[in-house]
């Protein structure tokens, strides 16, 4: 059976697809169970995929438990995102060697084999597309990021349920991914089958190697129902018109209220799939003849982040939380033409004190008294 972008098929389970990718020499990165959480790491065979698990998530809470037996993808997003692969937490930019009359600079080699991201959710595709615009901003492009991105195939999984922390439906980033993937899978639990959507010629070339069936009406309906179930079960949502609203609320007293709870720990920025801030670090060897420049993740919640000689610009937790929230939800639109939040809910679950971005945004929307500056 020959695949085209847009065509749909049915398979029994994803095992054959994982095996076909591995046989074809792809490095497959996908969900693995580690330290009681779903993380994204290398997969050596279909047996590595965690099964029968479901995640309970709430403000400051993430726990995996046994779900429907043998289910493949009932859990949703965990503490990691694909950002850790495309935009590594620590990355060598270049090195320099002292010479007789100065120094030589050598760009860092970037070893990125042809790679598959397996099990990418709709909100995560949206997040990757957000970072695409960050690292190719019209004036400057990060060649390493672009090369990794171009050499990466995306196998999406359409969510059939949501965690209590998910609010992608209100961000228009999910739960169903319409584009941005090479292949998409929908688990049809009752049919013990998967609907396969082909999203690109690259995806088609792989699907052509699989045994697939033509979907029946029932398969298509079940897939639609799965996505609808995921959307309908979302209990959190982002308030409307938040980009404009926040612009008017920079002086609002509620910032102090959040600041009282916020630990300024930076967890939210580290788990966020779109946060892109980084620091640079120079690492020297003992002789002082060899030096390396590294780029590391950074966060607007740290004191040094806004340091200029004489002190930090944002000294208070209030000002740092304000930077984070207004950047995510408001100024990101000015900078990149979209929200910086895709509604994945990670910052809610992984906040040690359970601060909820949707609730904080709503607090600014519902206060009729204070209009701030």
């Amino acid at each position, binding site marked *: 059976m020959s695949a085209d972008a847009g065509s749909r098929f049915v398979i029994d389970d994803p095992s054959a697809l994982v095996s076909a990718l591995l046989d074809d020499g792809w490095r497959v990165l996908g969900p693995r169970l580690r330290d009681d959480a779903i993380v994204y790491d290398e997969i050596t065979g279909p047996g590595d995929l965690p099964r029968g698990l479901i995640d309970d998530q709430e403000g400051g809470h993430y726990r995996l438990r046994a779900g429907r037996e043998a289910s493949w993808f009932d859990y949703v997003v965990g503490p990691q995102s694909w950002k850790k692969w495309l935009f590594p937490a620590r990355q060598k*930019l*270049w090195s*320099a060697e*002292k010479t007789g*009359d*100065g*120094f030589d*600079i050598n*760009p860092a080699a970037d070893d990125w084999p042809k790679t598959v991201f397996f099990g990418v959710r709709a909100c995560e595709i949206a997040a990757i597309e957000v970072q*695409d615009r*960050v*690292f*190719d*901003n019209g*004036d*400057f*492009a*990060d*060649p*390493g990021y*672009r*090369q990794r*991105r*171009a050499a990466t195939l995306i196998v999406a999984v359409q969510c059939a349920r949501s965690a209590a922390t998910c609010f992608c439906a209100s961000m228009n980033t999910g739960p169903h991914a319409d584009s941005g993937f090479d292949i998409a899978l929908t688990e049809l639990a009752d049919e013990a089958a998967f609907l396969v959507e082909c999203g*690109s010629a690259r995806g088609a070339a792989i699907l052509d190697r699989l045994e697939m069936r033509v979907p029946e009406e029932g398969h298509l309906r079940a897939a639609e129902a799965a996505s609808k179930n995921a959307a309908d079960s979302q209990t959190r949502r982002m308030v409307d018109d938040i980009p404009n609203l926040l612009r008017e609320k*920079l*002086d609002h007293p509620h910032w102090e209220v959040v600041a009282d709870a916020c630990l300024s720990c930076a967890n939210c920025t580290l788990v966020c799939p779109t946060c*892109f*801030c*980084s*620091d*640079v670090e*120079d690492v*020297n060897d003992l002789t*002082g003849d060899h*030096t390396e*420049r590294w*780029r590391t993740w*950074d966060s*607007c919640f740290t004191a040094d*982040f*806004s*340091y*200029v*000689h004489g002190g930090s*610009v*944002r*000294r*208070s937790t*209030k*000002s740092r939380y*304000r*930077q984070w929230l*207004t*950047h995510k939800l408001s*100024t990101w639109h*000015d*900078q990149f033409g979209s929200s910086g939040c895709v509604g994945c809910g990670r910052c809610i679950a992984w906040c040690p004190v359970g601060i909820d971005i949707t609730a904080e945004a709503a607090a600014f929307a519902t206060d009729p008294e204070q209009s701030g*500056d």
Partner: protein
Amino acid sequence: MLVVQDQEPDPMLPRRYRVRSTWAELAGVTSVELTPVDGAAVAFRPGQFNMLYAFGVGEIAISISGDPAEPQRLIHTTRSVGAVSAALTKLCEGDMLGVRGPFGSAWPVAAETGRHIVFVAGGLGLAPLRPAIYHVLEHRERYAGMTLVYGARSPDELLYAEEIKTWKSRFDTEIEVTVDHANPAWTGRVGVVTSCLDRALAGIDPAMVSAFLCGPEIMMRFSVMSLADAGVPPDRVWISMERNMKCAIGFCGHCQFGPDFVCRDGPVFRHDHVAPLLSMKEI
């Protein structure tokens, strides 16, 4: 699908330059003239900056303080305040350093022909303004007038003092220099920049003024108020801003000021564009 070119230049990779000469400006402030080791000199616009890299120490943002008409003479003026700036001020003739840039927005001085250009500088803020001053001096006939109001903490802190004298000796410029604290040898004005600015503006048609400001934020705030009080149109005032910078290309996020990246959208901003946020703390 992203298209990747074969040999995409990496904007994080410095080019190597060599120090052609270096001279002390003030205590702790040094200027360097640089020539490229890899490739040709790069044109720049007044107000732009480079990221200067000292081997094994780090990289910081430093404005270009030379003449844009002579890009082959790349000049930077640095005050030693920390590890990287100290290393840059200790460079000797023949030493190598890394350069990325030029980055950022520019003083729109070439677009403001026909106007009376007012430069307001505080302390080392004269360095990023000097390329624009050179431009106006070289094309003085294109402008209705040129005024420089410059303030420093003390006479010892006046940057480019000898050069300012040559600017002053021209009959087609108005140069006002003031210090906060005089010493016995000082015969010039004492007082803050704003009082000097008020005096300088008194004889000028405010509608004709285009003003360029660089210095401590507090100095710029009060100077903008003086300009507004004098009747200078709000859309004819530009300031240069400073924020922590790690990349200069919009990637690291450090320099954000509301919706703007100071490295890309600035450092030179039209004042009315940033005024609402400038009036708030800790943005």
